[in-house]
């Protein structure tokens, strides 16, 4: 009985300590971004890595998401005889929800895991310690460019995702299923408001913060060895993905 209580207590304490450490990490990282954002070339490099190099995977997922949305939407809407609304169904689901969330999940898998692995390997091979003993701030060189890169890249990727998804939906809905092309875009234009676009952008910016935060944090506190790196990478991807979905729910309920 006592040992169960002790176990639960220790678990709670270590959880609290971890949460506190994570909070301090992001606060210090944000402070360092304001004080020493790092060289533009480093930020551009991360922007290219997180953003530009994710284009292909975003393109593919967006196209197929839009296409399947059109298929499913068409199937449902014909039941009510309102397949003309297909454009607004596709656009609203993408812009409000699927664009930000799916692009963030894809970036987590592609770039987030790489961020954790890279920083984790720098940690276990003492490269982070090397920065510290040279009196160079690791956050300035490693965290700031990545966090800024993710904050800029995510909304851009999300916008690309939305546009490609809408055209994917157009391809299937109009060209394949025969929805009136005028109706597809007209209904879309009528129903999508600035608020929808804005909430999508806000979401993807916050997802950018979540991805860079969790992935940098997990890499920075990697424990010894190859196993440590693999463990942090897995943990970073799982945790970022879950956090993205949970945070998405809260944000949606606030922004709705």
């Amino acid at each position, binding site marked *: 009985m006592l040992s169960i209580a002790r176990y639960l207590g220790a678990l709670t304490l270590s959880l609290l300590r971890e949460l506190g450490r994570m909070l301090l990490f992001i606060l210090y990282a944000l402070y360092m971004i304001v004080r020493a954002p790092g060289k533009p070339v480093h930020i551009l490099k991360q922007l290219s890595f997180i953003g530009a190099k994710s284009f292909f995977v975003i393109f593919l997922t967006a196209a197929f998401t839009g296409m399947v949305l059109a298929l499913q939407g068409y199937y449902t809407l014909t039941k009510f005889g309102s397949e003309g609304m297909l454009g607004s169904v596709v656009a609203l689901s993408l812009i409000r929800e699927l664009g930000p969330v799916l692009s963030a999940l894809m970036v987590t898998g592609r770039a987030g895991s790489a961020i954790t692995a890279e920083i984790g390997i720098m940690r276990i091979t003492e*490269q982070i310690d*090397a920065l510290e003993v040279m009196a160079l701030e690791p956050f300035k060189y490693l965290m700031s460019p990545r966090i800024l890169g993710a904050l800029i890249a995510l909304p851009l990727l999300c916008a690309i995702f939305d546009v490609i998804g809408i055209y994917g939906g157009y391809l299937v809905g109009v060209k394949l299923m025969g929805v009136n092309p005028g109706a597809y875009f007209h209904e879309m234009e009528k129903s999508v408001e600035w608020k929808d676009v804005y909430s999508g952008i806000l979401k993807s910016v916050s997802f950018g913060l979540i991805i860079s935060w969790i992935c940098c944090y997990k890499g920075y506190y990697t424990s010894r060895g190859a196993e440590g790196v693999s463990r942090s990478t897995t943990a970073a991807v799982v945790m970022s993905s879950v956090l993205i979905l949970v945070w998405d729910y809260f944000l949606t309920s606030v922004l709705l």
Partner: protein
Amino acid sequence: MIELFRVTKAFGDQVVLNHLDLTIPTGKITAVIGPSGEGKSVLLRHIIGLLKPDMGRVIVDGEDITHMSRAELNRVRERFGFLFQNSALFDSMTVFENVAFPLQEKTRLSKDEIRDRVRRALEDVGLRDVDDKYPDQLSGGMKKRVGLARALLLKPDIILFDEPTTGLDPIICNAMHRLIKETHQRYGFTAVIVTHEVPSIFDICGYVAMLYRGRIQMRGTPDEIRASEDPVVRQFINGELEGPLKFV
């Protein structure tokens, strides 16, 4: 002068440093010897503030670095160079970029001046035509020399060596020792070398401190250490299997 007062450090239940006292004189080479896993590297990391002691104080030239803010600590670290056990070169950069990095980030030297100084630093450690190689294309000994060049570049007052010869063959090991001695004579820095390279380290160092069970078992000149009657010291420097040191 670097002084450690009653420094205690534990990781979980394992006490690594136990009320350790040590004074390291300025401008000399001090070797810290001792069996593997006795916390020699941990001791070295305390001197530069990479680890904080659970108890006790670390004082560098009169300044207590134990409770310093990051900014203050960085100011003290400007005076240090550190050679890591595995060199800790940035693996995404070439040799040249690695050595140039601290100069680029901390000084306002022009590109030509940086190139000159990096070339000279690499030549000082006997390296040529490796500028464009990446660390994973170098042998262990070469990496250590690049690490030494990087540590020497900003002309630090104090250089800490974490097992500079581990994993090197005996010839390169001696060459490394000679390199340390020569650069020490040229630049006159304070050196702390963590090593278990006995007795060859005795040829280059002014003082030896032996770490055992979290404390300094003995400290003295190489001759004093050699002449020591202490069974632990005797067993270690002679590499005997029988004695107070137990190997499992």
